[in-house]
């Protein structure tokens, strides 16, 4: 035996957690800033002040400070959120990068154990099956083999969002920006300008949420594929150990509790994205078209504080500031699911190599 050692702990496994935590901190911070700072400020700025008052705000006024906050903060907060996404991806990449070395060690371990198992000539025992988990995990595991279909579905949804942008939103933008500002804003209800404006704002309320459901399905498919790999590795372990006599057979460890955590994290992520889609559809069918189907110059701009139109404007101008970061929270749960699923695979690979080496030592 001699030269083959149990797999060493790769350096990547000591650092991936740091990036996953960083991802959570950045994404959660952006959600909290959006929910507790930006959205209330937008609601107050647009909902409590008429346009004339907002436009007349002088330098140093409280009103201009609100506008400054609303215009400046998202310009650094959005890249910060994506830095969080990149941190998650980097953590996942680090985990993936630790696998080739572990596989190399596993190949060597199995290679030295193979002739020993053959030489011992133990009769093959039955291959055990893991007990079926209870609900909802049995349902989740039952869906796992469908991951290619779910990945394609996610891809098609994002593709559809692109087509809506190209074939509906883009022509509507071109129609709205076909004339001078005074003409487009002075256009009356029923005109092509007002109709185009309604289409633009309605699509912007639900299509981004729809697109993120597609991305969420893509991430869910990745987690499901990782879960399938973990199951297949476990089965491989059972098959190999079934060829080893009972007195030397390595005892397979139980399914780690982390499996349930990554499954729940994935479900949670998809539920949040679906919830965001429902909110987007409700907005796109209700307050958004109700507000924008007016003449901008003669109805929307003169709206006075306390009017129904200005309170609708408060909703229309503030929802994206908390809904967009909420979607990212959903994505963070999905990335967490992938991160944990990878730890299960890595732990399984390393444990199996350890067990096989122990068997080799005993058999030798």
């Amino acid at each position, binding site marked *: 035996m001699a030269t083959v050692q149990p797999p060493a702990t790769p350096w990547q496994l000591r650092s991936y957690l740091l990036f996953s935590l960083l991802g959570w901190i950045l994404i959660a911070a952006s959600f909290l800033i959006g929910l507790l700072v930006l959205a209330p400020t937008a609601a107050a700025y647009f909902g409590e002040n008429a346009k004339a008052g907002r436009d007349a705000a002088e330098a140093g006024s409280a009103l201009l400070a609100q506008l400054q906050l609303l215009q400046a903060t998202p310009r650094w907060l959005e890249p910060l959120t994506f830095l969080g996404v*990149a941190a998650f991806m980097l953590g996942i990449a680090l985990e993936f*990068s630790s696998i080739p070395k572990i596989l190399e060690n596993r190949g060597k371990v199995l290679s030295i154990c193979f002739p020993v198992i053959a030489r011992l000539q133990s009769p093959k025992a039955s*291959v055990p099956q893991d007990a079926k988990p209870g609900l909802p995990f049995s349902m989740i595991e039952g869906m796992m083999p469908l991951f290619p279909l779910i990945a394609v579905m996610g*891809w098609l949804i994002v593709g559809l969002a692109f087509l809506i942008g190209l074939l509906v939103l883009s022509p509507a933008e071109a129609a709205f920006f076909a004339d001078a500002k005074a003409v487009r804003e002075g256009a009356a209800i029923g005109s092509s300008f007002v109709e185009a404006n309604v289409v633009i704002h309605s699509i912007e309320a639900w299509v981004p949420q729809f697109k993120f459901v597609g991305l969420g399905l893509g991430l869910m498919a990745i987690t499901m594929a990782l879960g399938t790999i973990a199951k297949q*590795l476990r089965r491989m372990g059972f098959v190999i150990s079934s060829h080893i006599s009972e007195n030397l057979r390595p005892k397979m460890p139980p399914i780690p509790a982390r499996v349930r955590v990554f499954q729940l994290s994935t479900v949670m992520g998809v539920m949040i994205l679906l919830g965001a889609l429902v909110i987007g559809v409700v907005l796109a069918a209700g307050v958004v078209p109700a507000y924008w189907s007016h003449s901008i110059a003669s109805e929307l701009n003169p709206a006075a504080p306390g009017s129904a139109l200005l309170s609708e404007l408060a909703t229309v101008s503030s929802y994206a500031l908390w809904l967009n970061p909420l979607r990212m929270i959903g994505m963070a749960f999905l990335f967490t699911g992938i991160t944990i699923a990878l730890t299960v695979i890595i732990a399984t690979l390393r444990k199996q190599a350890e067990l096989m080496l122990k068997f080799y030592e005993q058999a030798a």
Partner: protein
Amino acid sequence: MQKLIGRMARMYPLLIVMGFMIVAIAFVIGYFNAQTAAAYYAASKSVRESQLLAERASIESVGLWLPYFKFLGLGLILGGIVMALRVIIDRLKAAGMEVLSNLPLEKRPAVLGAPWYGLLMPAVMMLGELIFLVALIVSIGLAGTAQQVYSNPLAVVDAAGAGSAILTQLQTIQATSAWLVPLKFFGVATEFVAIVMGLSTIIYLLTQQTQLIEQGLEIGKAGAAAAKGVPESASREQVPA
């Protein structure tokens, strides 16, 4: 070709580091753009719309190209993960061959080739990267247009009528952004599909290797039994799972 892809895939850490650096740089640029926006919106409407033209042009143009630059970074990280999967696939194949090399060549079970989705994975990954690049190039063009539009006082931009150059430019920016924004997400979704293809290939290989190792063990046991003079059937007590 596959060997070349396999060799190139080993450079995946470079892609991942580059991608993360790009996203971090995007955050820094975003921070400075936010400072410009804070200074711009600290002035009254009449001042900013007539005097702070360069600031407005800078804010608008950075806002147009920066998201695509950031997504190129995310795309490189995802591409790096796909390439890492390729390295894992190659290592998994090598490990399987190493185990089966214990059997004499003529008795070794036949190993099947990679499935079609495994072969297609690098192409799908490259398609995703191409989408990010195209989106970035188009967005840089739009940013240049925005720079031209907003170097005029806002009163001039607002007064631009049908058929004027400024309104056509404004129309182009708005109409193009409408499909360009979802395009970059389509790039991300394409990278996810490439990752799923890689993971499916791993599942395929693991399933195949489980069968091959089982067959190999039976062959090995039979060989050992023959060497000892024990009847072959004595070493088999098949109880299917």
